[in-house]
């Protein structure tokens, strides 16, 4: 199974992705977590130590160092996963597709998108779950190219801008032929909020409540799953994991 998580910056993509990966792993699934953000930080929500997240070598830099051109990374995804992946808690394997660090770097953006496609599109799911935390916005969804058998999670918080991007992501996923699109109303403060968002997205909906424990963990740069796994948002994401694999 492959799951693509998309939405506006700050909507909670990484928090949801990290906690969802942890819950899926706890259910006994083998999970590969892809951080497709050019500013990778998924490791935090997975429970990887902060220092490792900051220093993590993304595939793209490694490929450039090895002499590959940025548009043409030709090593098989499976090999890259073994070579550049990082172990996260509960047997999760984390890999970052690209990171931009210095103005002196060669252009990495196309490469970042291509690596996203290579990993999400071409890495066989087989008996495991590939979960991709996509770059903010819609571009990466086009690059990842989820298909009929994949799941797209469109994450949004309450702001009109965030809802609009999630709405566009849902329509785009429909056009790409994705059979299962789930809208995640994140950090909702009321049922009215969740209902309004559901009407906008008009897809299967799931609600994750506002949760101070998550905010506190976010501030410290630790996984909410480690800080307080019984907090309302973490429990909700556990239910989401059940819903997805049922």
């Amino acid at each position, binding site marked *: 199974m492959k799951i693509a998580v998309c939405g506006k910056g700050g*909507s909670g993509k990484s928090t949801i992705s990290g906690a969802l990966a942890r819950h899926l792993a706890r259910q006994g699934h083998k999970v590969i977590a892809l951080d497709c953000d050019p500013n990778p*930080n998924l490791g935090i929500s997975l429970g990887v130590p902060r220092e490792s997240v900051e220093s993590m070598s993304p595939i793209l830099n490694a490929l450039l160092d090895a002499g590959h051109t940025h548009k043409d990374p030709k090593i098989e995804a499976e090999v890259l996963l073994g070579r550049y992946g990082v172990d996260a808690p509960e047997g999760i394997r984390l890999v970052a597709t690209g990171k931009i660090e*210095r103005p002196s770097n060669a252009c990495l*953006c196309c490469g970042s998108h291509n690596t996203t496609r290579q990993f999400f599109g071409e890495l066989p799911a087989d008996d495991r779950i590939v979960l991709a935390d996509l770059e903010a916005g819609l*571009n990466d969804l086009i*690059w990842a190219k989820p298909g009929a058998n994949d799941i797209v999670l469109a994450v949004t918080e309450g702001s009109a*801008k965030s809802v609009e991007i999630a709405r566009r992501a849902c329509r*785009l996923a429909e056009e790409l032929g994705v059979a299962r699109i789930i809208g995640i109303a994140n950090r909702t403060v009321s049922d009215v909020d969740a209902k309004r968002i559901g009407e906008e997205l008009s897809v299967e909906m799931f609600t994750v409540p506002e949760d101070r424990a998550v905010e506190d963990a976010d*501030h410290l740069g630790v996984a909410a799953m480690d800080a307080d796994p019984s907090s309302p948002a973490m429990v909700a994401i556990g239910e989401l994991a059940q819903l997805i694999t049922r």
Partner: protein
Amino acid sequence: MGEPIELNKREAWAVQCMDRQLVVMEDLVARAADIRSWLALERQANSYARHLGTWLAKESIFPAARDRMRQHQSDLAGYAQRACDEVAGVDPDSLEAARAALGVRLAVIGKGGAGKTVTSSTLARLFAQNGRKVFAADLDVNPGLAISLGLPASEGGLPDGAIEEHPGSLYGWQLTGDMTPIEVVEKFAAVAPDDVRFLGLGKIGPASEGAGTDKSAAKQSVAALVHLLLGIGEPDWDVIADLEAGPTTPFERYHAFSEDVVVVVGPAWRSAMTARRLLPMVEDRRSIIVSNRFRDEPDHPGLAARFRIPFDPELAEVERQGLAPLDACPDSPAIVALTRLASLFMAPPGRRRPTSNQEVPV
């Protein structure tokens, strides 16, 4: 010597960019009428020169055009020197006053959701309320600035008449050569409340319209908009750009036009990590770290905020409704804080205007 040099398409594009910069410089010279406009001209020459410097610094870029690039460097230095000469005899107080009255060149960067758009839009509107001409640009393919300015989300795309194809340009498109950048703003920008002029990357259509490919409106517009920003030398315009979240846009130097950079940081640790990744990319600018939405959390280590926008449920509600914060909650704590931030960029009232009685012709 003297033989025509073969330029590839990228080099031909670079040469055309330099030609167009000279047109902008000559336009500024022709209209320079007071101390402030000569200072603006000097700033514009230096701004172009700094951008050229990023090309010159890379040996591999535009090899066949390097002689021209060095010539251009010398031309720009000539304009800067001429401006210096023009103001050479001016007393320091008048010079300082004129400098303080120069329009702002501001880029706003940070992680997604940090609060870039509310910051950019509110500053733009406040500058305009203070009597400035303001151009605000959204360099994010996911439009948000229009909404926060008080415009419909669909407004402000660059029309066909403002862009043209060039095989050597980024994504194959560039700003039209028929007009100077400021003329494009005056002709095509959407008019937002308080008379703020606004342009964005246009709307990403459905996948079938080529979103994510070189044919998308955003890809066609982005190089044009970046060069448009870089080419506004007018002293009486404030220019503000809201950059797409994260490191890609500063990495691509979309902030090349700016003198000041606001880095917005939220309370989450990953927002601080983003800021730490961004700051080296803008180290040659004056940067201000603005913390947003903190409650009682301390500043992130190594990222002391120079300015603070407090956590504000009233603003969050206005964001839920998709309204312009300055209209919907002007007295909320966050907007009051942003009003103070705006005043940081605006000189004291007595020094707003040029000392010369002669206004800059438009």
